[in-house]
């Protein structure tokens, strides 16, 4: 029995392996690096630019090709290209460096955009630009977590940003009309939820215009709906209280 000695090492370079288990068998395909994500997002349309070779393997690094019978039993087709496409779409893969980088970059910008859209500079009541937010996020060394939603992270980052720059969620402007008998009672309950009351009229019914934090909207909405049994009305005057138009500094 002879011992297998490698004559020389063959390294797989520029290869990304996509694996999938189906029908109790493991299937692999050999793809180019940094290309699978583009294929999945639809940016890359040429299959030949994604696949190294039009073959389905059992083990790519050993070069073991999958048997035809296994393929047809697992995928119920023996069209290799079709199988490759299925594996590409659903298989698992090691995300390569550039793919991860671009993904994180995009998320980072996405978070910055959400923050910029939701927040204002409380002094000027004007939004910050995305670039400025990005810079501020870098200043506080914010790192993106790929497995959390961008929105969630945006809300977190707002809290952190408050320590370094003047920033605040843009307020919502509401108007509600409450029947007189509920008015007094409700006002007490609403008070802690309201940031500023802009206008208040109490004659035969209570009419209020106020600014609230957008996070409280649901509570207020519910409160009014439940307490007044549908008699009170709630109107959103503006979802985001910001200055409009250009302002000349003078």
């Amino acid at each position, binding site marked *: 029995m002879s011992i297998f000695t490698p004559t020389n090492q063959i390294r797989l370079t520029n290869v990304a392996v996509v694996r999938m288990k189906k029908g109790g068998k493991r299937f692999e395909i050999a793809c180019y690096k*940094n290309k699978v994500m*583009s294929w999945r997002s639809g*940016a890359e349309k040429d299959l030949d630019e994604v696949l190294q070779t039009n073959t389905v393997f059992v083990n790519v690094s050993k070069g073991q090709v999958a048997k035809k019978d296994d393929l047809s039993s697992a995928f119920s087709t023996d069209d290799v290209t079709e199988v490759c496409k299925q594996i590409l779409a659903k298989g698992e893969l090691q995300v390569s460096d550039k793919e991860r980088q671009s993904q994180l970059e995009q998320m980072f910008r996405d978070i910055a955009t959400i923050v910029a859209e939701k927040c204002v500079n409380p002094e000027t009541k004007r939004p910050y630009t995305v*670039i400025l937010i990005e*810079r501020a996020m870098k200043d506080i060394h914010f790192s993106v977590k790929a497995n959390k939603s961008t929105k969630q992270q945006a809300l977190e980052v707002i809290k952190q940003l408050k320590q*370094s720059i003047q920033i605040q969620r843009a307020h919502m402007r509401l108007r509600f009309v409450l029947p007189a008998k509920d008015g007094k009672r409700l006002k007490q309950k609403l008070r802690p939820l309201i940031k500023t009351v802009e206008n208040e009229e109490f004659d035969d019914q209570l009419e209020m215009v106020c600014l609230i934090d957008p996070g409280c909207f649901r509570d207020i909405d519910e409160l009014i709906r439940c307490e007044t049994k549908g008699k009170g009305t*709630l109107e959103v005057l503006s979802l*985001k209280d910001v200055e*409009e138009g250009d302002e000349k500094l003078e």
Partner: protein
Amino acid sequence: MGHTSLEKIIALQKKTSRIRNLCILAHVDHGGNEYLINLIDSPGHVDFSSEVSTAVRLCDGAIVVVDAIEGVCPQTQVVLRQAWLENIRPVLVINKIDRLIVELKLTSQEAFTHLQKILEQVNAVTGSLFTSKVLEERAEKDAEAQSSCTENSSADQVYDWSAGLEETDDSDLYFSPDRGNVVFASAIDGWGFSIHQFAEMYSQKMGIRSSVLLKTLWGDFYLNAKAKKIMKGAQSKGKKPLFVQLVLDNIWNMYDAVVTRRDKEKVEKMVTSLGLKVMSRDLRHSDPKVLLSAICSQWLPVSRAVLSMVCEKLPCPAEISAERVEKLMSVGARRFDSLPEKTQELKKAFLDCSADETAPVIIFVSKMFAVDSKALPQNKQRPLTQEEIAQRRELARQRHAERQAANQSAESPGSALSVKAAVEEENKEHFVAFARVYSGVVRKGQKVFVLGPKYDPSLALRLPEGCSVADVLPSIPHMACCTVDSLYLLMGRELEELDEVPSGNVLGIGGMEEFILKSATISTSPACPPFTPLNFEATPIVRVAVEPKHPSEMPKLVRGMRLLNQADPCAEVLIQETGEHVLVTAGEVHLQRCLDDLRERFAKIEISASEPIIPFRETVIRPPKMDMVNEDLGKQQKVAVIHQVKEEQMKNPEGVQVDSTGLVTLTTPNKMATVGVRAIPLPEEVTHLLEDNVELIRTMEQFSLFAWEDKTLDINQKILENIQDFKVKLESNLQGHKWREAVERIWAFGPRRCGPNILLNNIEGYRRPSVWQCLEREKETERAEIRDFDNSIVSGFQLATLSGPMCEEPLMGVCFSVETWHMKISTPLAQQDSVDEDSQPAEPSNDDQSESSDVHETSSNRSRSRVGAAGGSVDCYGPFSGQLIAAMKEACRFAFQAKPQRLMAAMYTCEIMATAEVLGRMYAVLSKREGRVLQEEMKEGTDMFIIKAVLPVAESFGFADEIRKRTSGLASPQLVFSHWEVISSDPFWVPTTEEEYLHFGEKADSTNQTLKYMNAVRRRKGLYVEEKIVEHAEKQRTLSKNK
């Protein structure tokens, strides 16, 4: 000229007739009896022509310096126009004549023709200014005559076809040596002369009367040596003109002897014949220029020539023309006659220019300039930091606010005054107002009114009689009262403190920065009108977005920008709706200076300037009939198109159906409502119409809003008429069977309820109140039914139009027609709801229904969800009204995508004046930046071309600078935003037909400009950009790191 003592200056300031205020307007580089000459030098670069404007306003006369070789440059024209607009009298200095001799080596004869040409050019500019003014007046007169004619049409009309040019005398406008307003000079060699000097010189020598010589020395005259007579027609007879023979030849000989041939004997002979004394040191000097200037500065000293011309020809402050006064006093389009009587009386004060105690003080401040605090004479000890200034400004601002508040509530301003006194204590200024006294005497400590540019004197005149400055001021907008803290004499960079300044003088006033922003009028009489705003030749065009390096320094930046705005007459700073801080400057050079000022003086922080955000609009168009290689699409075999459509439909999520005509049907997640929407491109005229009538639409919207709440809004008759007019115009533009009754069926405008997009109600059997209901107030008896959730549909439309699917930019020129709207819910919900809620306390599973929409929404966008009445039914998908909003928005977006989509770019119109030789290079720059030439015409009588072009805003960054560079400054563009234009190429275009495959290849490698724009915006906003991480899989660097 020796140094003059301060006392002497003060003494001279009191003699109005001995004052000359003038400025040097020069494009070329330049090197200064008992007259007080206030000389204001102004920079020649185009970017700083605002400085010229501020200088010209304060002067009575100007020395226009023209280069003898270059002649009239664009900038020369600009300064001449500025001088003309301000009605100040110019005198001309043709400088650098030595270059004609030494560099160009012209003969004296050639030089004479050359000089004549330059003079003609200058006069042509003045002439055209004059002509345009006369024609304008003429047109005005005609218009008046016409209006009077229409009144009594029976009056026989006699047309006067002469344009009025003949009647108006323009002879004293022109520059002519024999009028004494031209000096020929070579400042570098120290000589300069006017014809007067030579005329006097030769009248003694030749025995011809100097007045005759004066008339004949310039022009086509020659000396007949035999007859000793001066004859006309030198040119035709081939004789030497008198000017050449008597003047230029002498100078040429001098240069020949001194510079070219270095003939010592001849030089000595000339020197003795001229009766000059030249020091032997100069004679022996190796550089002939030294000798030359030694001789010339004695023979024909430039200072004497220029100064005597200035004193003789330029008016003194008291000679201010009535015309100019009227021009200064009438703001904007208001005519002088329409000013209040008291104000008109002030004209006399202007004309008198008296320094009497009784005369009202009138001062105009043309700019504020920042002075290093050390330079201020009274506080050389303690320098003032920028922070303190800003702090003080802030205090002043507060005080101002307080004062206004106090004024408005008509309280006694005691508290405000005490604050003022407290602050005044430490009030040491940094900004000095650059001003001129037009009437009266201004004293230190005097109380005066400061009138802002928008002040209206008629308001003040409603005050009770005898109200003096010291009285408490009721609230009058743009008027403030303050004390003159300190007065300065401006001596170059030095400031000398003065106690009083009589009329006619230029001065600096300290302590005004709280009251004056950029320019203002100061007076003791409230009847004084504010002066007309300065004419700025260079409008600010170069825009950059400025941001601090460290975001926490934002407040510092804002403060710095405010200070910059005050210090620079031509810089504009603004905060845009996007939150960007934009700095607008006149040019790249100016920008650089502004940024440096911000960094080092005003903000003192690190800042970064970047290209400002460029806005786009999204729209749809009719399906194109031609493909990219201009072949008819209909006949060709479509190779890939079928494949593409298939793919697209696969992309659509559940619940969305798109039919072949572009009708999109979409059902809400709870399957309760279905809407069918179609997107239709609006004709271009309609879009323009909508854009122009935003205010009217807003009024209509307001009316509907009030009607919705059972109130009425009073709209005045004129606006109603305008609305009617607008409606008629819309109807005339929306014709054809597709648009039948479209105007009547308009549901809403968007985004923000007044934008250039329309929501059409094409639902059968749904009649809602029209948007035109304000026009039909009388007919309001038959009130149409409004369905519940009507507002959700509108809100969905507003959201969709505010940010389109291409790159979340607003839509423009799109009409969404709602064709079907089915609801499975019975209308009266209210009671049912409340029951519902008791049993099922609103589970917020779809957590952020409202939040997800708020991201895209802005304030004016009101989603009026009436909780009790309408949006009540809650299921697992959140409130129903919210669902419907989202569904409508999505439907609009899909409908939009079902049509050929295009991006619209903001366009600048750009007017470029350029000479013929740089035309080619200018076109190159234009075409490189996707510009398009609209028209090109030659300016009559000059070699200048006026080119009108449009240029996308996206390509304009650095355009002005590039074009100036490429054309050596001979073309200067003016960019003004004009309109939105559809970019014709499709951002999603891929080759589909065979022809296109042949032409572009499978991948269409040539860049798609629209796609580039779109992706840039998407990338900036953090949206998904469809692009591959690596283009070619095989070309990656594949070496692993551990090898």
